[in-house]
């Protein structure tokens, strides 16, 4: 039971972070379908940091360094999206998809190169971080508290405050709803959209490292992040682009994802003898069902997905 709670909170943290990332990007008017790829890049940065950092350093240093590198990788990678979609008005779906594929390919190439350099016979795309991963968790009884849970909570509160209480949030949302109006009062729509996309890169980058350290101590980068970026988008839609609703939606989705990790620990579930594939499918089926019920009356930012062109008014 504790394990289920622990995994639920962990996976919810991932979904909260990434969905909030999507939320910032979409409120600025850019649909970020490249979240999945950004997660991979953030995960890569974080995993490599964990791999090389000395496990004897204080835990707080390790956590902060990992956060920093994941953030940096996510932000840098999201530049590719911002550049193409904002400045060059590229098709946002196409570029997002390209970034997802590129991330998987690039991460695999990078990891393999590193592995080969260390040992020419090791052609796998796996990174191990058993030792330093311990720094991320604190044992409270049988419950393993993960610092990233706290990071997700802080991100959630910060997102709410930034979007609804600050000048930046007001301007950001104006750009996603009615960029012409924002432009007419002297707000630089391109700058705000860049900001939205880079914030999404930051959050999704962190989400990536949280995901690959949840419950495992090594990651095979050929597998990417198994559609989690898209699950996060489903969470965002279910949460109607509002931070607090996103938090609740993430808990629900996190629970079903956690179930597939720990179902065998529950006697009554194990007794049902349902194949593991069914549990693996669960989060995707749930999100499909949820989307079917919530998409009809969605409150998506009105101008999302439409490149802003100063010329057309």
């Amino acid at each position: 039971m504790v394990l289920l709670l622990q995994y639920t909170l962990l996976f919810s943290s991932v979904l909260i972070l990434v969905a909030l990332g999507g939320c910032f990007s979409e409120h600025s008017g850019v649909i970020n379908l490249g979240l999945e790829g950004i997660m991979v890049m953030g995960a890569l940065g974080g995993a490599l940091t964990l791999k090389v950092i000395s496990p004897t350093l204080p835990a707080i240093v390790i956590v902060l360094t990992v956060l920093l590198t994941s953030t940096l990788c996510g932000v840098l990678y999201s530049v590719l999206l911002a550049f193409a979609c904002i400045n060059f008005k590229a098709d946002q779906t196409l570029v997002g998809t390209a970034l997802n594929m590129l991330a998987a390919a690039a991460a695999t190439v990078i990891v393999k190169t590193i592995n080969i350099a260390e040992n020419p016979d090791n052609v796998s795309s796996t990174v191990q971080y058993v030792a330093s991963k311990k720094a991320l968790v604190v044992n409270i009884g049988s419950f393993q508290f993960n610092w990233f849970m706290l990071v997700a909570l802080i991100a959630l509160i910060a997102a709410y405050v930034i979007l609804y209480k600050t000048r930046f949030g007001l301007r950001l949302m104006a750009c996603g709803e009615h960029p012409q109006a924002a432009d007419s009062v002297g707000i630089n729509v391109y700058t705000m959209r860049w900001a939205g996309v880079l914030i999404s890169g930051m959050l999704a980058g962190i989400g990536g490292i949280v995901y690959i350290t949840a419950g495992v101590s090594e990651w095979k980068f050929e597998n990417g992040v198994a559609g989690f970026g898209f699950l996060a988008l489903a969470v965002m839609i279910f949460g109607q682009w509002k931070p607090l609703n996103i938090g609740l939606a993430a808990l629900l989705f996190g629970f079903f994802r956690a179930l597939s990790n720990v179902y065998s620990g529950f006697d009554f579930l194990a007794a049902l003898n349902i194949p593991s594939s069914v549990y693996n499918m669960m989060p995707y089926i749930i999100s499909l069902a949820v989307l079917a019920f919530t998409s009809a009356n969605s409150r998506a930012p009105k101008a999302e997905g439409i490149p802003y062109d100063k010329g057309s008014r």
Partner: protein
Amino acid sequence: MALESAYAIEMLNITKRFPGIIANDNVTIQLKKGEIHALLGENGAGKSTLMSVLFGLYQAEEGTIKKDGKVVTINNPNDANDLGIGMVHQHFKLVQCFTVLDNIILGVETTKHGFLQKDVARKRILELSDKYGLKVDPDAKIEDITVGMQQRTEILKMLYRDNEILIFDEPTAVLTPAEIDELMQIMRNLAKEGKSILFISHKLAEIMSVADRCTVLRRGKYIGTVNIADTNQEELSRMMIGRDVQLVATKEDKTPGDVILHVENMTVPSKLHHNNAVKNVSFDVRSGEIVCIAGIDGNGQTELVYGLSGLENITSGKITLSGKDISHASIRERSLSGMSHIPEDRHKHGLVMDYSLAYNLVLQRYFEPQFSSKGFLKKGEINKYAEKLIDQYDIRSGQGAPTIARSMSGGNQQKAIIAREIDKDPDLLIAVQPTRGLDVGAIEYIHKQLIARRDEGHAVLLVSLELEEVMSISDRILVMYEGEIVGEFDPKKTTPEELGLYMAGAKRKEAGA
């Protein structure tokens, strides 16, 4: 010490060229401090280009702009804002899901440690709204308030920024007659308080009633500036159009024939809110008559037509076309049963903008045996037919039938739609604001086409927001207010003033046969 200039803003000898067209040719306009100055011209006369130059959206090739007598350069809207120039755009620049307050402060927010100080802003907005008589609720969302209140929000946006030069771009198009009067009063108040106002319009009566002076543009050229006190509507009209025009269309009396369209207790839901947009409406349109639905924009006319054409399902009631029940027929069935529809939004509904003109001209008929066989399009036939319509309806396009619709002028796009819809030879032609945004020549042409349909003994249902158009070409007028038909009139026996009262909801009577 230089003498203080009498002009708040001057645009001197402005010339702006676009590929293949001179949008502003040596245009001069001088706005005195504290005056209301009208800028008059037809669609396409160059008014918007001139304002875009003033706001730094375009850079003029020649000419200078002076503020208080000093030459200034304006490279972007921010420069214009800094010079105290503000504008109420024809299409409001308001974020629908934001509150009035959020919209007003957007871009000039007061903050403390990065946090918004909305209470400070609220106080200032209420002061301003008191001072100028601009009633608004700062905490209401834009999507929930009336168009009039949205416009007041736009005006407050300018005042909140301490703008001295206020530009109103066609501000009356969306207002009720009562709201128009109120706006005129607000404009006078603002001028009295020392604000300088530029009022862009093509409505002569309004200019005569509120402006001090008027500058006229025609096809990009500066025609002249006159004192309103020394002129009259006829002179302004001549200046604007360059010749005398017959604004009133001529048509012979005709006795209507059989009922073509019969609508009984029709109700249509709204996409924007939970109430029904059209409530329990009944009326007839007979052959050989033009029935006009008059009303202020947003009183259910759009949805009424959606209900009739099948773009929206009706929730109750009955529609009969030439004796056939089409209440729940598909759009295609209605079209085949003899209904043509010139849509309100020609870009969204009327044309596939990236298709060729030829493909667009068969948009309702591509599947007919004349244009296809065994599932294949007969491109030769389609082109032949297109050439015929282009010839017959004088549709001008760069390369004829293969021209991409997007590259055509608005007037010719509309002509293409009209040609397509009329050539179907429908029993009933529904035309929704068919003349919107067109110049006088195109308007005359379209009116002639509508009257010709009537004279040939077909039924025409016209939806129009322009009272002048309503009065001049209809045989019968139905006024819509808040989704209901509140009155039926004979254009010969009513006045624009009487219609205005019904359109504003001040009066109503049951519509009888």
